[in-house]
């Protein structure tokens, strides 16, 4: 009887141990935040594909490893070889399309990786030329999203010394949200008024990636559970060709890869509080890198 009691106590201890261990060590994976820093779709040419020299009348392969290092899924990914002179290099396929490339997440912590193969053959050189160098671009186009979230202090009665709540940070800077498009800077401006007040967020968006953001579309913008009224501002803001005019989207020019979003909300309450500011964006992105093939005799 005593022996059984000891066995029962040991079992309880074991169960408790399992629970203790389970509770204590289970958080390491879940606390990894992929949505920080600057990450994007990255490309790597495989060694010898293409080779340094391609001989006349021979076949060759261009093999590209594409890794989505961003924290978001990429949609409609088009990757292609552009600008290769067909007289010297004939490719059987010039473009490959992936409907979806998953971003980094708990399930795919390294992001989606794809290997792209472009097969081709070389032709003859001009007369008795020693070589020909053909330049080309490896180009990628895709659509993706980016989410921003932070805790902000709302304090409509700035001059109320009796309210010792949170302190408004007028300006905050950010290092990225796990995508090439990033919210880099937020200014918070409070306008006190009789009944409550008004809060304005001036959100600076910038492309920190190696490619080019073609356009940005605002998704949802919420302060706590309430929606903010937002619109893009700035002299370079223009609406995408063929779209209905809306201040919720912006086309970015090559020489100015940034945008300013102004979000406002009327406040009903006068007391200070902290709440979450959450905004998500969709964007079209283009990336290109120049390479060359060398045809020799």
């Amino acid at each position, binding site marked *: 009887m005593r022996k059984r009691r000891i066995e029962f106590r040991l079992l309880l201890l074991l169960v408790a141990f399992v629970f203790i261990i389970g509770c204590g060590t289970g958080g390491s994976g879940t606390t990894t935040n992929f949505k920080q820093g600057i990450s994007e779709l990255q490309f790597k040419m495989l060694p010898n594909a293409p080779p340094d020299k391609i001989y006349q009348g021979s076949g060759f392969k261009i093999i590209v490893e594409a890794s989505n290092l961003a924290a978001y899924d990429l949609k409609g990914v088009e990757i292609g070889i552009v600008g290769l002179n067909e007289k010297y290099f004939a490719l059987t396929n010039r473009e490959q399309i992936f409907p979806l490339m998953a971003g980094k997440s708990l399930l795919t912590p390294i992001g989606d990786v794809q290997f792209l193969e472009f097969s081709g053959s070389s032709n003859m050189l001009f007369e008795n030329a020693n070589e020909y*160098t053909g330049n080309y671009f490896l180009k990628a186009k895709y659509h993706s999203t980016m989410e921003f979230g932070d805790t902000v202090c709302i304090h409509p009665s700035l001059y109320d010394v009796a309210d010792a709540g949170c302190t408004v940070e007028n300006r905050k800077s950010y290092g990225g949200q796990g995508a090439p498009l990033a919210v880099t800077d937020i200014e918070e401006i409070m306008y006190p008024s009789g009944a409550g007040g008004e809060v304005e967020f001036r959100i600076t968006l910038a492309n920190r990636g190696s490619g080019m953001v073609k356009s940005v579309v605002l998704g949802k913008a919420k302060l706590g559970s309430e929606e903010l009224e937002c619109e893009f501002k700035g002299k370079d803001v223009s609406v995408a060709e063929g779209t209905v005019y809306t201040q919720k989207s912006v086309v970015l020019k090559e020489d100015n890869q940034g945008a300013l979003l102004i979000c406002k909300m009327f406040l009903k309450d006068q007391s200070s509080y902290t709440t979450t500011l959450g905004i998500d964006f969709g964007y079209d992105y283009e990336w290109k890198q120049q390479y060359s093939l060398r045809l020799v005799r």
Partner: protein
Amino acid sequence: MGAGDSVKSGVQAVRSGVAAATSAVFTYMAIVVLLGGVGIFLWRYLAGPSNLINYVSIIICFAALYAFSEKTQQQKVAVFLPAVIFLVWYFVFQGAVNITVIASLGGLFLVVSGIYGYFTKGGNVTPELYGLLPVLVLFLDIGLIALLNKEFNVTSGPLYGMLIRDIPWWALFGLLMLPVAVSENKAVSNFIAFLKIIGFLYPFAMIVIAIMTTAPGVGEGPSSFKAPDVGEFTKAQQEELKKVSGESAVTSLGWCIGNGDYLKLQDCVKERQETTQIEAVCEKQRMIKKGSPAFDKCFKEEKEKKSLVAVSGVADPTISKPTTVHFLRKETFPQVSFRTEGQPLKTMYPVVFEMENPRKQQIKAHFSCGFVGRDTKDNITGEIVGKADMDLQGEVISRGITCKPEQSASAQMKGFYDVKYSVKLEGLVSKSRLERAIIPATTDYDLKSGYVKEAQQLLSSKSGASMAAPDLSRLNFMIGNPPNDPVLDPTLDLQLFSSFENMGDGEIITVHNYNIDIVSAGLSVTDGSQDCVDGQKILHADEGKERGVKALSSCTVKLAELYTKIKEPVVMEIGAELKYDYLLSQKYGFEVKVS
């Protein structure tokens, strides 16, 4: 005052009298050189270069030597010595690089110079060097620059004409030789001083600018062991003046002022120069009499040709091996031959024909030869020993070519001769290529700028000109809007310009066909004749002889409809070829001695 003093003062008086007389002679000599120079300049300007003018120039050279020795206060004997010996070698011994002649004259010079140097304690070196300056001026006056350009292509550009035509060398030399105080009248002296400054700066500025426009390629001159004679200088000057043609800017300015075009002088001079240049081409090159209907037709044709843009091309940097053709004289070539009086010359003259044919073209070659007496200028027919017609193939071709003079005529041969070898190469083909990038059609300025930038990065050649193998000739062409823009917009009409270029030392004798394969590249002619991309070219006299670019044709072309649908820049290459015959000649000198 004693007798001794009287003698001293007498000697001083004689000395000052002699000095005054010498100074007067010197002034007169300088004036002779100045006026003679002006006279020669005008004479040559009006009547064209001739041997007679050049002989007068030699006489002026002696006056210049005298004036120069006085001006520089150098020993006359030392100043005259090298100049006289050089002139004797050049005119009496016809510039022969012959060991006997060189040793005799060189020995004479060394002996006289040595004796003189002994008595003057080495004071002869400077004046001897001074003496060579008037000789240099003499050669400049009789056409040294023209000859250098003809033989070596060392000068080019628009100011080249001024160098050989617009500088009165002797007049400038005489002007600079005038004493500081040429007259008691201060105004005259000041005017002369002013002229001297202008005279000093004028050729200096011309030469500096001419050097700045010098062509980089210095060709291989014909091998010869005899310096060119006065006739060759005259001929070179005549030929080069033909090329330069037109009237000088100064004459045009005078014409415009005479016609009262004071307000638009610059435009008037430019127009007048263009007109006279075209007239000169018809009159001097095409030998058509001014005022005739044929002349009017020629004027119209040449004006049209001039309006065509003579596009230039570049050598393909990826092709390292050029096509080269030349004759080579080996040690078996007899530089001196002996003939028995009354007997024909039995010597044969062998050379080696060498051709590097890196593009392995199959060529027909026809060889010929002939003899020209250097002094007598008589032509003696030559005969190729063995086969004169050959099929050439392979990458490196080497053939022995032997020439012998016609038997009966060779019985009269005596003295210095040139044997001229010629080869007519038939069926040569030179290929060119032009790289262009086409951008997608768009009206969005920013988008278009991005495409243009991308297209420029894709091009392997940034020059915008066609590239060709370094052959004897090449076809140059450009397509674009403007033609040298390598980025093509499919919504625009494109201009096509072409030209052919003689790259070798010989003559393009026939252009059988030129073809720019625009069809394969998806282009078509929209305005103008199909001749602009495919046709034959009938060459005018001398047109194929000159090195450089000659305009061929022009038209408007358009890209095929499919290019308006492209979404990304596309790189393409347009090919072209020129089929032609080429003539190359080379002469070598030799001497026939009769015993």
